[in-house]
């Protein structure tokens, strides 16, 4: 006999993430594209930076800006097609009919995109350190917090705007249009915060700057907005 019992949200989330990773292992689409794009961006920008005669501190600033900008472009590009498979196969409809809340789907997709953002950032920064000889001498913990907050904010925002643009005929261009006003302040804040952290001298201790607070704040606001808006935004999109 079949028994029906509504699964807990944590179980649904676990199943969704497992499914995302399993299909990724089979198709090697998302993470492989992120790594290839990040490597390409990283190598091109690092070679360019390495050819410039710059003071090490200026080189660090230029590199920081480039790293975040390229990670942003990579994640924005990856997020444009994140619902295509679900819509084309009708799997999105089936999940909604199963009672899976769009906000749960949003969280699963945002988590996978966040993992992609971290991989992209590590690849681009790694390439920069290796090729452009950029030296990071400051404490790594504040940088790790920033990298994590930045990745969460970026992925949460791009996943949200991909849902908001899902119902439009020109999804990709609409997504970019609605993402930019929210994305630009975030990228500026995260670059500023990274520079603040990287330019701490050995005698100084790290403290929460205005830019860092803004990054952490937005990294909390964007996922909350995504969870709140996705249920409403995904109404007729399946």
């Amino acid at each position, binding site marked *: *006999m*079949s*028994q*029906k*019992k*509504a*699964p807990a949200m944590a*179980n*649904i989330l676990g*199943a969704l993430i497992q*499914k995302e990773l*399993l*299909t990724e292992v*089979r*198709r090697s689409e998302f993470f492989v594209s992120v790594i290839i794009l990040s490597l390409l961006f990283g190598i091109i920008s690092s070679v360019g930076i390495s050819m410039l005669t710059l003071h090490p501190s200026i080189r660090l600033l230029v590199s920081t800006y480039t790293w975040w900008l390229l990670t942003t472009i990579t994640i924005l590009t990856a997020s444009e097609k994140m619902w295509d*498979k679900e819509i*084309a*196969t*009708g*799997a999105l*409809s*089936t*999940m*909604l*009919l*199963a*009672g*899976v809340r769009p906000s749960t789907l949003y969280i699963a997709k945002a988590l996978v995109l966040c993992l992609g953002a971290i991989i992209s950032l590590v690849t681009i920064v790694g390439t920069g350190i290796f090729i452009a000889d950029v030296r990071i001498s400051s404490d790594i913990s504040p940088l790790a917090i920033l990298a994590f907050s930045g990745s969460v904010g970026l992925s949460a925002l791009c996943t949200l705007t991909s849902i908001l643009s899902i119902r439009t005929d020109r999804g990709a261009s609409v997504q970019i249009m609605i993402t930019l006003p929210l994305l630009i302040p975030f990228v500026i804040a995260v670059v500023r915060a990274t520079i603040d952290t990287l330019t701490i001298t050995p005698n100084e201790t790290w403290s929460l700057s205005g830019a860092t607070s803004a990054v952490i704040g937005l990294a909390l606001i964007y996922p909350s907005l995504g969870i709140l808006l996705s249920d409403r935004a995904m*109404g*007729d999109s*399946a």
Partner: protein
Amino acid sequence: MKINEENICQLDKINVSLGGSRIFQDLSFDFKRRERFLLLGRNGSGKSTLLRLIAGLLSPHSGTRTLGENTNPFLLSHASGLYADLTIEENLLFFSGLFGVTKPVNDVIKSWGLDKFRYRTLRTVSKGTSTRTGLALVDIIRPPLLLLDEPTANLDHDGIQVLLQRILSDQDTTIIIATHDLHHLATWGNTLLLLDNGSIKSSSSIETKEALLDFYHASNR
């Protein structure tokens, strides 16, 4: 909003427009519990749209669609509704889990003739096998309100027989089938629905059914 207990779904003055053209205008209809509805209509008459509306996957511009208590509809449309990169077994386990069903899938896989394909991804099997997998999921979850859009389109003779025996004979389920396949389904169902110019003509007696079928055939010529 509560609905009459004998109904499983009520549509009240529904208006839907898609791509600038009006599909339904003040459409009202009561779908009674445990009835079997055969939904006919020409291409573009709105059959699939009506099923999506009943399933709750499409919101009307105005009017209300109300379901009875504990009525979770399930729609199997032209697309399988499953993941192309998961195997047949993984799809059945994944989606039945989302529906909260803990039934083993082995028996259903065998019943639908999917045993030799169970470890193959849907991407690598035929459309007919994909449709069988979607129907196998229906067989597992047994929804109280089942909406099928052209379920026989990709099925061979054996597949249609399994569909008729395992799903369409279920007396506890309210089933609405949108189809053009009168060869296999003309005698199935107690109520014939014909979508024409955004409204529903319905019939449940044999005489009026024949009249409605004549009208449908005439409109298709």
